[in-house]
């Protein structure tokens, strides 16, 4: 069974801090995604990656960066956290080269609060 894990379930940081959110998948998936989920806004795509060292901006990349040095690991970085980045962050992964319709497997989420 596919497993997607995220480094923290619950995180509290201060404004201006650098924040790392890690995601690891164990199924050799090519594609990995970072989303944020906010009440009434659904899932919004921040960045995705379809191969090691490859990354593409999603719909809301501002204020975030990502790193994919190994196939199984995709990191989301908040260079200088701000209060409007308080949210639930979800990582997902999928197999196959066609991003559009392949099933995405989600991690449990990280609830980040920025004070």
């Amino acid at each position, binding site marked *: 069974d596919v497993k997607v894990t995220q480094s923290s*379930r*619950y995180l509290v940081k201060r404004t201006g801090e650098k924040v790392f959110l890690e995601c690891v998948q164990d199924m050799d998936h090519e594609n990995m*995604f970072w*989303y944020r*989920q906010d009440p009434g*806004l*659904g*899932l*919004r*795509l921040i960045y*995705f990656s379809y191969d090691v060292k490859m990354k593409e901006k*999603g*719909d809301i990349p501002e204020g975030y960066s990502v790193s994919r040095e190994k196939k199984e690991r995709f990191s989301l970085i908040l260079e200088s956290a701000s209060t409007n980045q308080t949210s*639930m962050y*979800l990582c997902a992964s999928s197999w196959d080269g066609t*991003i*559009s*319709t392949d*099933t*995405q*497997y*989600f991690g*449990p*989420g990280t*609830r980040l609060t920025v004070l």
Partner: protein
Amino acid sequence: EDKVVQSPLSLVVHEGDTVTLNCSYEVTNFRSLLWYKQEKKAPTFLFMLTSSGIEKKSGRLSSILDKKELFSILNITATQTGDSAIYLCAVERAGGGADGLTFGKGTHLIIQP
């Protein structure tokens, strides 16, 4: 461990048919159940259900939650080829800093002309 099970895993129907997608769950401290449609990069939000027995409707799509039996259904009437997608169900839990989302594996719906 929280669990969300969707059925069927895949479904092929003809345009004009009505489909019912199922989602059952086991979760502690239930807050809400969400349905998404995934056809491009990111899933599109469809419905959020928090109360039992109240149907949410949007055009040809409707959904209802049964908190006693721990399941939800998503109905699509008069299906069109544009309804072809993966439909995801997710359950949100709350309380004590343990809130988060658990997703099902999705139902892959294909509508044939």
